[in-house]
């Protein structure tokens, strides 16, 4: 009997296999709800989410609170997640426009959903594979988020507002029933 070739991934011994993360129940509507904007500090993320918040205030009379991510590259720590869950009915986060921050946006989304709050994460379309991979790692394969065309960082103020308006229906659809899939990609 020859020796076996050993596996270098260590997946047998570590905690990679996560249980399925539950998705939060959707809201019936956004009317009068508390919307938390989790801004990831990437260039144009703030004006983008500011405009999303302004449009939601106009359209649904929501109350908007804003928070800046501590580190765009990694998911928020547990205490921040708890505060976000306590203070908001829904959360919108973005803009995931890089390798680590797009993955971190979906990771935040999955964790917040499991804690009971619907989330709409915004990712630029260059980072769909990494966002999907992170969601699967976090126990939420097929996790739904909204996309906007890459790049966002180079857009002028007016163009950022246009983008925010364009993605707004997708964000709302992610947060209220019936949940439709705004991703351009297939669910498979």
């Amino acid at each position, binding site marked *: 009997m020859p020796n076996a070739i050993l596996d*270098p*991934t*260590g997946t047998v011994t570590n*905690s990679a296999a996560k249980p399925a993360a539950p998705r939060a129940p959707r809201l019936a509507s956004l009317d009068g709800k508390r919307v938390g904007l989790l801004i990831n500090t990437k260039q144009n993320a703030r004006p983008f989410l500011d405009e999303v918040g302004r449009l939601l205030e106009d359209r649904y009379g929501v109350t908007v609170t804003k928070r800046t991510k501590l580190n765009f*590259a*990694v998911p928020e720590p547990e205490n921040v997640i708890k505060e976000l869950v306590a203070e908001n009915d829904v959360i919108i986060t973005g803009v995931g426009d890089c390798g*680590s921050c797009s*993955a971190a946006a979906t990771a935040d989304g999955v964790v917040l959903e499991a804690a009971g709050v619907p989330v709409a994460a915004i990712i630029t379309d260059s980072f769909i*594979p990494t966002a999907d991979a992170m969601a699967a*790692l976090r126990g939420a394969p097929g996790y739904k988020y909204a996309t906007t065309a890459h790049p966002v960082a180079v857009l002028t103020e007016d163009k950022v507002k246009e983008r925010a308006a364009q993605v707004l229906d997708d964000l709302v659809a992610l947060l209220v029933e019936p949940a439709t899939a705004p991703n351009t990609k297939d669910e498979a």
Partner: protein
Amino acid sequence: MTAVNTEGAAATAAAPDPDEAQRAIEYCYEQGWSDGLPLVPVSKPLLDAFLATTGKDPDEIIGALEQVGRDVNVRTAAINAAMAGCKPEYFPVVLAAFEALMRERAARGGGFQSTSGPSPLIVVNGPVRKELGFNTAGGAFGPGFRPNATIPRAVGLIVRNAFGIHPHVLEQATQGLPGRWQVCIAENEEESPWEPFAENGGVTGGVSAVSATLTRTMEFVDNRHTPNHEDVLRDIEDTVNRMGSLIFPQTSVALVLCPEHAQMFAAAGLSKADVQNWMINKCGHTGREFKLAGKENVPRKPDGTFATDEEFHRILSAPQQVPVIVAGAKNAAISMVVRIFGEWSGSSVPVGEKK
């Protein structure tokens, strides 16, 4: 004694079976374990030889990437080091290099997932350089020498296999850089006029130690005709100053000086600190220069405002942002400016011994 038969094949009693070896190599490719180059297939006896070189428990966790829910223990690191082509006796250096790298904030954060695609710069000091046969002379950035080539590859394979960071998936490098997972310098202590680099990282007494940081690329400074050391410093300063690499208010650069430049500076009475202070004092741009490159938001001052058109904004402020290493042959005056991703942790890790 090897006999060569009429078909040109080497035939000895103990010659391994090449067809079996090729099947094992292809098996490793098929599992998705490879960085693109062939791997050494690892068996239990080889793993045991690696584990015998360290006093660490095989189950000890030596690093984790919380954001992807993955960690790595000594055993898994050993399998990857063996696959990379390391000899068992290199393993304590791999462990020290990995520990040094995981002290970097950028490595624990999203560095390995980053569009910047950074690569480790590993620096080895002390007697282990000679004991394990590191190249300490010409061709410091490689290739050609087994420990220098396989130890950084081991780190790359750990990131790929144990952390699960694969290109085009969780690894999103836009272009990456030449030499990724390939750079491990053994400092030329014998021809350096200064203290070993590990001492700058807090490991004194000449013991073997490893330092590591993440880098984005490097550029040479070829300056071999002037007798004036200040000319050379100005030339290096010009390369450090490249606008293209500047994305934050502060930057970091390692100066990998060839022995000739280092000795020229030392002969003029300069210490490492003097070289560092030259760069700290001279490197930077005016607000206007940043603006002309569309980077007016880069020179942010501590009070949150930005450098005005006329204001000179320094891009370096502390010696730790300018680590100075001596490497290469004393055969030409060519040094390297290495762009650091984030900031060097400032701490070196002693190479552990078997308990």
